[in-house]
Structure formats: C-alpha cells, structure tokens
C-alpha cells in the first residue's frame, strides 16, 4: 500500500517536473538575431499594416494617425477571460521603448517576454511565428519612428487556471508551429507558385487571417483541418465567414474579387465590409496591389472546407 502511494507520488512529481520543463519559455538563437543589420523602415511600415498591430494596440476605433499611437487598451473578451492589449509604444517605461530587436522577435515568434515569461496567444504570435526575421527587423525600425504614449493599459482579467502564464508553455508546445498550414497549392495547375507562396506568407503569417476565420478547439488552439473554414465570432455576435473555395459560397469569388474587396471593402455583389473585418480591410488597402492579388491567388488554391465548420 505504502509502496503504491510512493509510486503515485513519484509519478506525480515526475509529471509535474516534466510539465515544468515542457512549459519553459523558448527563445530564438542569439546569433540569428545578431546578424540582421539595420532594418528598412519603409518596408517596416508595410509589415506593420499587413500585421494589423494597430487593430489591437491603438485606441479602439482610432482613425488616421491615431492608429500609430500604440498605447494599448483594447479589451479582447474570450471564453478564458478578458485580455487587455498592452502599451507597445516607444515609451521607455510604459511601452517597449527600451526593447531590442531580439526582444521583439522573441515576443512575436516565440511568445516569450524579455524577462522570460510566456505571452498569451491572444497576442497572435502563433501566426507571427511564420514571419521572416528580416520583416520583423524592418518592423522594429519602423516602430522606432512611432510616438511614445504614456500610461499602462492595465492587467488581463483571467480566472484560475488561465491566469498562470507558465501553463501557456504547454499550449505553445501543442500549437506553436512555424511550419506553413497549407503545404502546396490545391487544385489549380495554372497557379504561379511564387505568387501563391507570397499570398500564403501574408495570410498565414503577418495577416493572421486564420486567428478569426478558423474555428478553435476547447483550449483555444486552431483546428487546422478546418483552416479558414469560418468560425463563431469571438465577440459573440454572428459568424466569421468561410473564405475557402467552397462551391455555392466563397468559391464564386475570383482572385481579383478578393483583391478588390481588400482594396475597396466591397464584395462582388456590392455588399460592404463590416464588423471586425473593417480595420483588417483598411490595413490591406495600404499594401501593394500585387500583395492583395497574391492573397486572392492563395485563397483560391487551398482546401475547400464545407459542412460542419459553416
């Protein structure tokens, strides 16, 4: 009896220890970041809009230049509690004015803070993990040109056990994977692979389209078999539409219809963009036309998700 108990205790301790190691925050290799050189703020601005940082870190409903004031404060209501987007302006105390490019790259690709804590995936680093370090380097140099905004946005409001950051490490083990979601173009033989891959990069990486358009499982991980197949809106009202090439649905949009929607906000039947897609569309409108076309080409050549996800 005693032996059994001991066995259980040892096993429990081993599991806890394993859990502790498995949940340890990870980081980029230091040499990789050291060799980046100075970034290009002009490309960095395009990366900034493609990644939608301002949708969460600028004041809610900010327009024009106010989108560049990254004082934080947006409240993201989720089943796990409320996440508050922090101040990521250049303020050295309240924001990230003292950060190095390595700090930003670790946050965006590993979800790890400068002092070694795990970030919650409400910060969409599971998508940003697919970004090129050169783009993050350029983004960093652009963010350096943005204003410092004082003030702390306040803490997250999460219930136990979601308030334990360490536990996020296990989530990262399960869901943080920089590999592409769709390995190769599906269906169309006449797809230009270079354009399709550019579209894939923008959608799966900086654009983090999957974070809203893909359904999640009970621990908040994306269900990749239903990639971009539509999901209940996180805001609790309505649905985020299926944007895979399903017949009788989004499949009727051509690649240039998709590009035109991202540019103008109008669907092929001249309905207007709405809801949480408005800031995304306005950001996409700032990219080069070839990038919007590439997104259209990618969305036309991915697996069609029908049925349950809708």
């Amino acid at each position, binding site marked *: 009896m005693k032996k059994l108990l001991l066995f259980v205790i040892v096993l429990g301790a081993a599991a806890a220890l394993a859990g502790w190691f498995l949940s340890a925050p990870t980081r980029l290799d230091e040499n990789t970041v050291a060799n980046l050189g100075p970034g290009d703020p002009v490309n960095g601005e395009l990366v900034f809009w493609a990644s939608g940082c301002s949708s969460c870190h600028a004041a809610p409903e900010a327009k024009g230049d106010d989108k560049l004031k990254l004082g934080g404060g947006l409240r993201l209501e989720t089943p796990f509690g409320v996440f508050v987007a922090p101040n990521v302006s250049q303020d050295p105390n309240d924001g990230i004015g003292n950060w190095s490019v390595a700090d930003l790259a670790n946050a965006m690709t590993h979800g790890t803070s400068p002092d070694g804590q795990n970030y919650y995936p409400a910060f969409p680093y599971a998508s940003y993990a697919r970004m090129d370090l050169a783009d993050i380097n350029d983004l960093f140099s652009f963010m350096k040109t943005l204003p410092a905004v004082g003030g702390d946005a306040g803490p997250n409001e999460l219930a136990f056990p979601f308030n334990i950051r360490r536990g996020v490490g296990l989530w990262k083990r399960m869901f943080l994977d920089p590999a592409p979601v769709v390995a190769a173009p599906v269906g169309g033989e006449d797809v230009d692979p270079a354009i399709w891959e550019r579209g894939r990069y923008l959608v799966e990486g900086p654009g983090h389209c999957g974070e809203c358009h893909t359904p999640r499982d009970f621990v908040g991980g994306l269900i990749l078999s239903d990639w971009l197949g539509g999901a209940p809106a996180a805001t609790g009202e*309505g*649905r985020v539409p299926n944007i895979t090439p399903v017949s009788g649905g989004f499949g009727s949009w051509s690649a240039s219809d998709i590009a035109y929607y991202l540019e103008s906000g109008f669907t092929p039947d*001249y309905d*207007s963009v709405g809801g949480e897609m408005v800031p995304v569309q306005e950001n996409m409108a700032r990219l080069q036309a070839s990038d919007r076309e590439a997104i259209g080409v990618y969305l036309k050549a991915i697996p069609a998700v029908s049925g349950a996800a809708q």
Partner: protein
Amino acid sequence: MRTISKCISIVSIAIAASLGAAQADDDPIGDRQAIMSSVGAAAGLGGGLMKGEIAYSPAAGKAAIAAMRAASLTFGDYFPDGSNASDTEAAPAIWDNRAGFDAEIAKFAAATGTAMEAAGRAGPADLDAFKAAMGPVFGTCKSCHEGFRVKN
C-alpha cells in the same frame, strides 16, 4: 443594354423603397433588407461606372445617387423594438445603442443629400464629377456595417 436594364431596376427599387415607408409595416425585417439590397444594387451600378465596366452617362450616375438618397431617408424607420429576432443581420447594437445607429443614418443621409445637390437635375456631368459625389456615400457603408451589422 446592361446599363439600361440595371438603371431601370434600380429606379424601380428606389421607388418601391420610398413607397414602403408610407405603408403598414408588418414585415420590417424584409422591408429594410429590400432597401439595403437596393443600396447594394445602386453601389454595384456606381462601382461599375467607376471601374469603367459600364459606360458612364449622367442619367446612370443620377440613378445610382437617387436610389441611395431614397434608401437613406427611409431605412432608419424599419427597426422597431423586437425586430431583431429572426433571420436578420442587424446587430443587437442597433437597439442597445440607438443614438449611435441614428448618427450613422444621419451621416448616410447627409452624404446622399450632398450627392443629390451635386448631381443636379441631369446627373453628374462626367465620371470625375460622379466619383466626387458618390465617393463620400460609399464611405458611409462600412462605418455603419462595422458596428451595426453582423454576418450570420
């Protein structure tokens, strides 16, 4: 041909929409959706003109603007309490934040009013004049859809 049939359908929808306001209202959801669908059709005509897919004529430009005008004056009347129950994409925010919704209606009406004035009797003389008149109307769609319309 495409231009003409599209214009005629738009004008008739616009008339239907403005008549609707005077009638008894037993299907506010259906009525407002019909009005918005005339807005979508007018936007389609306007967008087609702007993109050069449909040859520009002042009459076509005027038809698009007039349909928008009629819709902007009537649409707000079709959101009585309780009309958020079934088969609608109207967001609950319309009833939770009526003042905010009314402000969007007012913006829509102001933009169409200015466009009507710019259009004059004959319609905007050329495509540039049309773009200048219609542009601000197009700008009001997403600001209302952002907060007050959901996709199901």
